[in-house]
């Protein structure tokens, strides 16, 4: 298993294989997010990340990709507990945000809405460090038969808090730079995310939160250019992504993940884009579709 430096160039990697060692590896986006979490026996869980300057956009809002990754991590742990002894894969993730600039910490509180034979559905409430509502998320997980290599979830009834952070964890550059995400063509929402250990999930594919981040960045780029053209300005227009509806169709196992965005709607202060994510190294297989809504805040 290799680790990467944050500034590595975008290169395709080998076909994904599940992690053999502890997950996540020492250098991983969940560690740099300094994710703390705790879960209890009542199928609820909470998680926290700090929003440093590197995780804020031009208008001071928290990066939707960071929030989606927090939601995915908290929800994933909760769903894995609910699905024991089987394992899970993210089927869909929705994120709805209320713009709150300048926050420094986010709490995600998740609860299971339904735990069935084939799926787990849950809700996640997001609040600021001052207890102010920041948004809501929902997730559906498909239950998969347990395979060798899937993590073992301990659930002894005790509620304890753990942290992903290691010494030196944290962002010194933007989420895009840290993950190696590159904008190829902003107007068409074309971005690329390499599949590295830094963004892998336990199945060896790109983590669900990172797919959501890629979709959010693709939509933000395309909507920004479209708004700029509509307003006839070259000054730059930024729309903050406040809604994400992400449907996962297949795992991105090879990479890089490539995006295209189609503008569905553009108003003076808002817009909606449809984003398609493909696995470029796997015959451009469509892995994810997402609708993203941006607003000028």
């Amino acid at each position, binding site marked *: 298993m290799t680790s990467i430096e944050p500034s590595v160039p975008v290169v395709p990697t080998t076909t994904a294989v599940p992690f053999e060692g502890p997950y996540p590896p020492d250098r991983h986006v969940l560690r740099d997010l300094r994710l703390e979490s705790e879960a209890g026996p009542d199928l609820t869980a909470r998680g926290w990340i700090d929003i440093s300057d590197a995780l804020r956009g031009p208008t001071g809002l928290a990066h939707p990709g960071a929030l989606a990754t927090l939601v995915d991590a908290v929800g994933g742990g909760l769903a894995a507990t609910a699905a024991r002894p089987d394992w899970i894969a993210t089927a869909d993730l929705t994120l709805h945000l209320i713009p709150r600039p300048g926050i420094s910490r986010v709490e995600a509180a998740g609860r299971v809405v339904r735990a069935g034979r084939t799926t787990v*559905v849950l809700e996640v409430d997001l609040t600021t460090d001052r207890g102010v509502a920041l948004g809501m998320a929902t997730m559906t997980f*498909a239950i998969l038969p347990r395979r060798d290599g899937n993590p073992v979830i301990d659930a002894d009834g005790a509620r304890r808090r753990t942290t992903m952070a290691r010494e030196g964890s944290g962002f010194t550059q933007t989420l895009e730079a840290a993950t190696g995400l590159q904008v190829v063509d902003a107007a068409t929402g074309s971005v690329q995310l390499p599949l590295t250990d830094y963004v892998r999930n336990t199945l060896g594919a790109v983590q669900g939160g990172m797919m959501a981040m890629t979709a959010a960045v693709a939509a933000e780029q395309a909507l920004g250019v479209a708004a700029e053209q509509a307003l006839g300005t070259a000054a730059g227009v930024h729309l903050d992504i406040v809604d994400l509806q992400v449907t996962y169709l297949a795992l991105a196992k090879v990479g890089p993940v490539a995006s295209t965005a189609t503008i569905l709607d553009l108003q003076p202060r808002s817009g909606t884009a449809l984003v398609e994510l493909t696995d470029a190294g796997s015959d451009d297989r469509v892995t994810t579709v997402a*609708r993203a809504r941006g607003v000028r805040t």
Partner: protein
Amino acid sequence: MKTGFDDPDAGRSIGRYMGFTLREVGEPKPGTARVVGTAPAADHLRAPDGGIAMGALLTFADSAAGLCGGLAALPGWVVSTNLMLRAVNRAVIGPIGFEAAVLRAGRQAIVTSVVITDSGANDALVADGVLTSAVLAPAGGPPVYDRPLVLAAPPLDPEATPHLTDFLGAATAGADSLALEITDQLRNPWGILHGGATAALVDLAGCHATGAAATTDCVLHFVSPGRVGPVTATVQNRGRRADGHLLRVEVRDQGNEDRLMAVAITTVQ
């Protein structure tokens, strides 16, 4: 589960009321399908602001994408588990067109895209979404259809057709909630409350609780069937932003031990 699949007419009341025709396109093949449809942009389906009600759009989406998923799932059939729809422009001239296609067909779930357009405005986009459905095995076997399938609705009499709110029987249950009874005309072929009726109730409840004109965005998770009724949709307003109120709507079957039926996140404006 007792179903109405042996009766090809069962569960078609909502389709007739909405006036939509659905047609399977292409050669029937296992594991995939494409369905197109059309419906009049009738007055009884319009919201107070004059646009087509989001409840009607959600019902079109659920019906077209559900049928598409069901055909792909044969010899199984499907129930809706998650409907996501974003309305772009509800000021529709009509007629309304819609198209559903399979994005992914798995053993346990089918994911279907759905696009709704305004045929009277050069097929301008009205709404765009995704339906995820769970694959089940009907107790009496799957529905038997001639393929390619066509489900046609008879012409509507505008004078005798009640407004959507009245058709649903939606009534105020509180300042933040609406309720309806599960009448036979609101049941689907599984014998449970039609997903479109649940979605329309969510739309109406959000507007009722906030005074907003319309729902513009809806994510709806169906978590258990509505069997008994009355069914209540209760709204929590989670915050305001530039494009409207962000709401959480909870739908419960009061007659079935107040069981949670659905959870929705909506934006109304």
